[in-house]
C-alpha cells in the first residue's frame, strides 16, 4: 500500500491537474475540511451511541435497540430530530453571544482533529508544534461554554459556566504538564515524529514510572477537561439542571453535545498518540501494512474512550472545591515533581529502549 505522506498534499496535487496552484491549495483545504466535518460528525454520533450502550451495560439495561439493527440508527434519528426542532431562547439573552457560543465549542473540537496522524502519513495537517496546537485549540472551547452560560441570562447556566471556566483553566495545566513530561522523552512537539520515536517502544514503556504517573494524571485531567463525570460540575444534573446549556435547544444544543463527545475522542486520541504509540501496532505485528494503523489507532483510542465512560458510569461527582483541591494541591505538585523525575531519567539514560 502506498499512501501519500499527507492527504492535503495529495488532494492538492490532484486538483492542480485542472486548476491554478493557489485555487488548488484552497480547494484542497476546503475539501479536507468538509471530509473531516462529515466523518467526525458521524463519528461523534456513534460515540453517543457507544456511550448509551456502555451506560446500559453498566446499568443492567439493553440500551437503544429499536432504530436499526442493534440501535445503530438511534443517534442518527436523534440528530435528525434535533435539526428539525425549533430554536428557542430566552427573551433577555444577549442574542449575539448567545448564538455565537455553540460555534466556539464545536469549531475548537473539530479543529483539534486536524493534526492527528491516523496512520503513516494519513494526517491532514502535520505541523511542528502539534501538541502545542492541540492544547491551545482545546482551550478555546471553554470560551464558548462561558459565553453560552453568561449570555443566556439564567443563573443556573451562569453557575455552570463559571464552574466550567474554573475547572477547565485549572486542569489545562495538568494536561499540558503531563504532555510536556512526555515531550522530554521525544524531544519534539510534532505528532508524526513523536510516533517515529515510539518505534523503539511506546512512550509509556520507554518512560516507565514517570510515564505511568503522567498517564494517570493525563487521564484524570483529560476527563476533567472534557467536563465529564466525575468532574461534570458544569452540567451537574442534580445540582444545576442542565448547567450552561439549559437555555439551548435544537441544533445549538446538539453542537454542545456533539462537542463533548468529540472532545472525549480527542483526549483519548492524544493519549493514544503520546503514550501508546498512536497507529503503531503492538510489537510491530503489522509493520508491513501501514494502512492497518488506522485500525490500531482507533482501537487504542476506543479503549481509552471506554475507560472514560467507565469513570462516568461508576463514580459519583466531586464537589467543586474538592475538584480544585485535587488539581492545585495534588495533581499540579505531583506533575511538577514528575517532570523533574522524567528529566533526571532522560539525563541519566534510564529509559527503556528496544
Amino acid at each position: 500500500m502506498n499512501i501519500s505522506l499527507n492527504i492535503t498534499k495529495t488532494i492538492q496535487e490532484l486538483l492542480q491537474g485542472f486548476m491554478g496552484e493557489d485555487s488548488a491549495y484552497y480547494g484542497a483545504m476546503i475539501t479536507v475540511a468538509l471530509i473531516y466535518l462529515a466523518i467526525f460528525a458521524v463519528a461523534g454520533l456513534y460515540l453517543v451511541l457507544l456511550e448509551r450502550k456502555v451506560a446500559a451495560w453498566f446499568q443492567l439495561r439493553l440500551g437503544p435497540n429499536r432504530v436499526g439493527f442493534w440501535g445503530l440508527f438511534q443517534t442518527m434519528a436523534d440528530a435528525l430530530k434535533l435539526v428539525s426542532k425549533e430554536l428557542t431562547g430566552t427573551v433577555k439573552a444577549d442574542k449575539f453571544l448567545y448564538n455565537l457560543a455553540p460555534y466556539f465549542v464545536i469549531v475548537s473540537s473539530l479543529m483539534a482533529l486536524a493534526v492527528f496522524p491516523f496512520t503513516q502519513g494519513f494526517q491532514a495537517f502535520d505541523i511542528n508544534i502539534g501538541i502545542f496546537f492541540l492544547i491551545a485549540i482545546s482551550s478555546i472551547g471553554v470560551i464558548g461554554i462561558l459565553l453560552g452560560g453568561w449570555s443566556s441570562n439564567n443563573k443556573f447556566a451562569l453557575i455552570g459556566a463559571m464552574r466550567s471556566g474554573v475547572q477547565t483553566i485549572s486542569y489545562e495545566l495538568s494536561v499540558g504538564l503531563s504532555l510536556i513530561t512526555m515531550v522530554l522523552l521525544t524531544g519534539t512537539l510534532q505528532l508524526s515524529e513523536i510516533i517515529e520515536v515510539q518505534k523503539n517502544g511506546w512512550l509509556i514503556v520507554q518512560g516507565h514510572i514517570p510515564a505511568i504517573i503522567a498517564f494517570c494524571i493525563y487521564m484524570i485531567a483529560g476527563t476533567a477537561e472534557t467536563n465529564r463525570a466525575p468532574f461534570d460540575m458544569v452540567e451537574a444534573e442534580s445540582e444545576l439542571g442542565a448547567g450552561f446549556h439549559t437555555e439551548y435547544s435544537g441544533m445549538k444544543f446538539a453542537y454542545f453535545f456533539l462537542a463533548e463527545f468529540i472532545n472525549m475522542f480527542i483526549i483519548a486520541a492524544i493519549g493514544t498518540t503520546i503514550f501508546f504509540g498512536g497507529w503503531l501496532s503492538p510489537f510491530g505485528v503489522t509493520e508491513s501494512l501501514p494502512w492497518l494503523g488506522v485500525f490500531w489507532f482507533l482501537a487504542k483510542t476506543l479503549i481509552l474512550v471506554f475507560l472514560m465512560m467507565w469513570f462516568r458510569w461508576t463514580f459519583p461527582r466531586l464537589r467543586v472545591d474538592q475538584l480544585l483541591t485535587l488539581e492545585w494541591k495534588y495533581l499540579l505538585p505531583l506533575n511538577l515533581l514528575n517532570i523533574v523525575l522524567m528529566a533526571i531519567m532522560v539525563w541519566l539514560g534510564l529509559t527503556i529502549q528496544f
Partner: protein
Amino acid sequence: METITTTNFKSEEYFINMGPQHPATHGVLRLLLTIDGEIIKKVEPDLGYIHRSIEKMCERDSYQQIVHLTDRMDYLSSHINNEAVCLTVEKALELEVPERVKVIRTILGELTRIASHCLWWGVMGMDVGALTTYFYGFRDREMINDIFEETCGARLTMNYNVPGGLMFDIHPNFVNRTKEFIKHFKTKIPEYDRLLTGNVIFEKRTKGVGVLTKEDAISFGASGPVARASGYSCDVRKHHPYSAYNQVNFNEALATEGDTFARYQVRIQELWESISIIEQLIDNIPEGDHKVATNAVIKLPKGEYYQKVETARGELGVFVVSTGTKNPYRMKFRSPGFSNLSLLNHISVGGKIGDLVATMATLDLVIPDIDR
C-alpha cells in the same frame, strides 16, 4: 488612593429558585436559596405545590376510605401509612386483631421499608452524581413490587390494610417469593457497598457534610434514620412496639456522627435489620383469619386517639378526634418528612450547592408526605 484590602472586594449574594421543577428536589418542593458564589447562606423551603388537603378530606370520608387516602401521602411507605390508620381505628375500637394479621403486617411493613430504602439508595447515588446506582436500587425494588402486586394487587398504593385486619389473605406464593427475595437481596447489599459506600469520592462528598447534633435532632423533632444517625434513639418499633415488633429481635441502627455519611450508613444498616426481622417471621406466620369482623360503618367512640408507627422516613403519627360519628371530627398526620425538612436550613447553611443536594438526599424527603 484607597488601599485594597479584602474588605474592599464585596461579593454579592444572589437568590435562586431550586424547584418546584428541579432534579434534586424529587418532586415539587421549592427551595428559595440565598447563595454567595457557591456557598449557601439561607435555604427557605416553600411548600404548597402538591397540597391536596388530605387531612380535610379525611373529615368527609369514612374510616375505611381514609386508609386509601394515606397511600397518597408517603407513597413509598404506603403500606405502613395504611397500617397506621388501621392501628388507630383498632385502638379506638379496642379491637384485637389476629396474630396472623400482626405478623403479615410486620412483614409487609419491613418489605416496604426495604423497597423504600432501595429507591432512596438509588436516588442518593444519583444526587451525588453516580447515575448507575439508580438502576441497581430499582432492580431490587422491582422484586418487592412484584411480591406486593401478587398479594395486594398494587405496586405503589397498596390499600391492603383495612380496619380490623387485611383485605384478603396473602397469596399462596407470598412466603416463597419473599424468601427468594431475601436470599437474593442478601447478596446485593454488599454490591451496594462496593459500588458506592467505599468510594473515595462518595466519602469525601458525604463525611462531615450537613452535620446534625443530637440536641438539634431532638429540638427540631427529627425522627427516623435522620435522628438515629445523630445518636438519638427514637425507633418507634423499639420503644413503642406495634403489630409483631415485640416478637422479634432486632437492633436499632444508630450512629453518632450525624453527618450525611452517618445517615447513609444507618439506612444501609436498616436494610440488614429489616431482612433479619422478615427472616424471623416469614417461617412462623400463624394460621388463622386474616380479619376480624367490624361494622360496615365504623363509628369511633367519642374521644381523641393517637397512634404512631415507624415509616421508612421516621415517625408517622395519626391523631383522630372523634365525636362519635362515622367521620372523624379532625384528623391530623404527623409526618416525618415535615420535621426533617425543617432541619434543612440549619444543617446546610455554609455548605456548597453540592452539599445541599447530598444533604437533601439523605433526608430522604417525599414531598407529598410533607405537603399533604
